[in-house]
């Protein structure tokens, strides 16, 4: 009996010792990782013979100009045009002036890609600005990578800057940053346990939801419950029923503004906090969410030039009849950032890329923009309550 006790004790000691040894062992280092600081364009085309000629230097905008997101697209065009007009006060070198050319990103089967190619080849845009749509950002990046065109994007898909490509610049917080902020607040700040993640089945929904699940995993939190919505959204009743049954303390929405609007209308009166991805911060969601105090999102640190921001809001409202969304402010900043880069680089895509890559800090109406070597905006963001 004593022998058995000793054996059990020895086994326990061995197992404990083994566990301790494992705890003390160094963590496995990955074989390789991308050095963000080393990302660079080593190709040609910086010479003057590759400069874009003509009286107009065009900035291309790829945005939703039809369909359910038309309001968003119209606001982006209006904001971009405001930026062009503001920059026109002082012409570029050689008397060239800036112009905006906008093309539609909607349509099935990657039709946006043809519009992107037209912007680059036919319109000869010096740079592209893309909306919050992650697919459009990827398609632009693929074309830009082959033809050598800088792309400034509002899309939050983190993967566009995780691939060693030197042409893409993101001026918004990516999905990974948003997911981290949400998860910190949900699991650490509030110690919620019943968390429901609702995402769309499209590219952006999948990518965002995966980032949130990774963020939860890093905090060693239980995996969130998850509902993936097939698009187009036809019947919200089964989803509402699930939400009522599950009674989540936190509802994380990685959807478009249209889907988020349907969900918010369907669950009005329900308790719990709502965490909203950046892409959904558009009309019609903003109107429906007005007055609610339980909606959280991630926003950039506000730049010091508060008066410029206020002036932008007033002018945008006077021009369009409605207040600008955060995306409208961001596209305004994107165009002005490109314009300032052009003043440094001249009308040349490769040199403009260099100018954007080496830009230290830009204080825009949407916040501070400061790119790291991979094109991520490394400016601070924080979780904010939607008001």
């Amino acid at each position, binding site marked *: 009996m004593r022998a058995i006790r000793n054996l059990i004790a020895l086994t326990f000691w061995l197992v404990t010792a083994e566990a301790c040894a494992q705890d003390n062992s160094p963590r*496995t280092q*990955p*074989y*390789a*990782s*991308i050095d*963000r600081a080393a990302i660079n*364009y*080593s*190709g*040609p*085309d910086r010479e003057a013979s590759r400069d874009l000629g003509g009286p107009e230097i065009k900035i291309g905008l790829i945005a939703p100009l039809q369909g359910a997101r038309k309001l968003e697209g119209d606001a982006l065009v209006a904001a971009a045009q405001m930026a062009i007009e503001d920059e026109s006060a002082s012409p570029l070198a050689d008397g060239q002036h800036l112009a905006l050319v906008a093309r539609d990103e909607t349509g099935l*089967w*990657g*039709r946006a*890609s*043809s519009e992107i*190619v037209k912007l680059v*080849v036919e319109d000869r845009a010096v740079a592209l600005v893309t909306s919050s749509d992650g697919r459009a950002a*990827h*398609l632009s990046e*693929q*074309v830009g990578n*082959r*033809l*050598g065109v800088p792309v400034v994007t509002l899309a939050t898909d*983190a*993967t566009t800057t*995780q*691939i*060693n*490509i030197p042409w893409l610049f993101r001026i918004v917080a990516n999905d990974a940053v948003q997911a981290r902020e949400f998860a910190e607040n949900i699991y650490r700040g509030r110690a919620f346990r019943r968390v429901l993640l609702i995402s769309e089945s499209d*590219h952006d929904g999948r990518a965002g939801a995966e980032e949130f699940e990774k963020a939860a995993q890093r905090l060693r939190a239980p995996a969130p419950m998850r509902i993936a919505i097939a698009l187009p959204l036809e019947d919200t009743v089964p989803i509402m029923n699930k939400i009522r049954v599950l009674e989540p303390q936190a509802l994380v929405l990685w959807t478009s503004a249209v889907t988020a609007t349907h969900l918010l209308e369907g669950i009005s009166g329900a308790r719990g906090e709502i965490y909203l991805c950046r892409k959904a911060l558009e009309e019609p969601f903003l109107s429906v969410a007005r007055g609610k105090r339980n909606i959280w999102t991630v926003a950039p640190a506000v730049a010091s030039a508060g008066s410029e921001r206020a002036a932008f809001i007033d002018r945008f409202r006077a021009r369009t009849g409605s207040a600008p969304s955060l995306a409208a402010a961001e596209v305004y900043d994107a165009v002005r950032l490109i314009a300032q880069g052009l003043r440094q680089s001249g009308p040349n895509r490769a040199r403009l890329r260099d100018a954007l890559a080496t830009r230290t800090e830009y204080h825009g109406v949407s916040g501070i923009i400061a790119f790291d070597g991979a094109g991520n905006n490394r400016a601070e963001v924080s979780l904010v309550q939607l008001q």
Partner: protein
Amino acid sequence: MKRLLFIVILLVTATVLAAEKPPLITRWENFTTANGIPDDKVFCLAVDGPRVWAGTEDGLVLIENGKVARVYGTGDGLVHRVVMGIAVDKRNGDLWIGTFGGLSQFSGGQFKNYTNLTSGLLNDIIYGVAVQDYWVWVATTAGISRLDTSTGEWRNWSEFNAPFHEPWSYGIAPAPEIGKVYFAVWGGGMIEYDIATDTMKPYTDPDEEMELVLFRNQGLVHIIVSNVAFNPDTKMTWGSTYFGLTGYDGRNWHNYLTKDSGLASDFINAPKSRGNEVWACTDKGLSFLDYKTNTWVTYRRNKQNGHGEIEITWPDQKKTTLEAPTSLAHNYILNMEFQGKDIWVATAKGLSHGIREPQMEAQLYGNAKLDRRSTRGRQGEGAKVSKDGFPKSGQRPAGSQ
């Protein structure tokens, strides 16, 4: 007896070491807008016997007898000016041209065009095209299309009917020797199509992390695959990524990064392979791997003097640098093709014809007084060459400027 044994060992070793010397491209002939190609940015190539076709940002060009024979643009009937892929149908000489505005078939001196609106083509933005018997495979930004030229029937694969994590297809490599076709997919890894079973199987990045590689030979090195090539001799499939080179032998994966190989850069636009040769078209030069000996050769243009730099990385990672009088048109390499022992290289600043010259090769190796035993013994000093690659005596290879 001991002395005799020593001499035999020495001779055998010397023979083996001599055999390790990789073959070299010693002369480059370049084509730019200055000598007739329509645009300096060359995306793709196809070799049809003595004829070389090149796709540029502004049309299609035919090289014959060492000069530009003809340029084709949209005015001639080409569907779009930006040419991203070319394939030759060896059965009838037809040319299939993938562009940023659809697919063109060049047959009997006439272009016939296929677009998304006029045919079953999935999307007009094409990154690659390949011919396999009577099938024409097309890599589009919305997935894979296949035209059966015997029936005129189109068939498409995308995320809606096949295991594509993302549909953005960048390259195609038929592998008829093993009954497969491989696709390079941006965000979707490498996809294997089995002809007999008519099924597709994806190979993705097993660590599921975009910015790191967890283990060296973990599987596909990165989920964004920029192009793919099949080696009919070794039956290996090679994929290029912007995070290294990846090879698949049907069972194991073999990954190469700059950190422990002779690769010029981890940013690779395309691979090519035959025999023991594996080539990587990078943004910082053209790299060659002798897969059998694990010896690397990287070709670069010296930006200061325009000469060719040949960097040999031996299996023990020591390097020898030689200098040739001519060089690639540019170090940003987009694609390449074989033509006998020669190679053709598409760069972002011109088209390059790489030529092997055994005499020049011997001279370069001879001038460098290459001695692998001394190289091993004296790290840094290498093969007794100066920084510019020439012997310290100052003797330069014939023909150098």
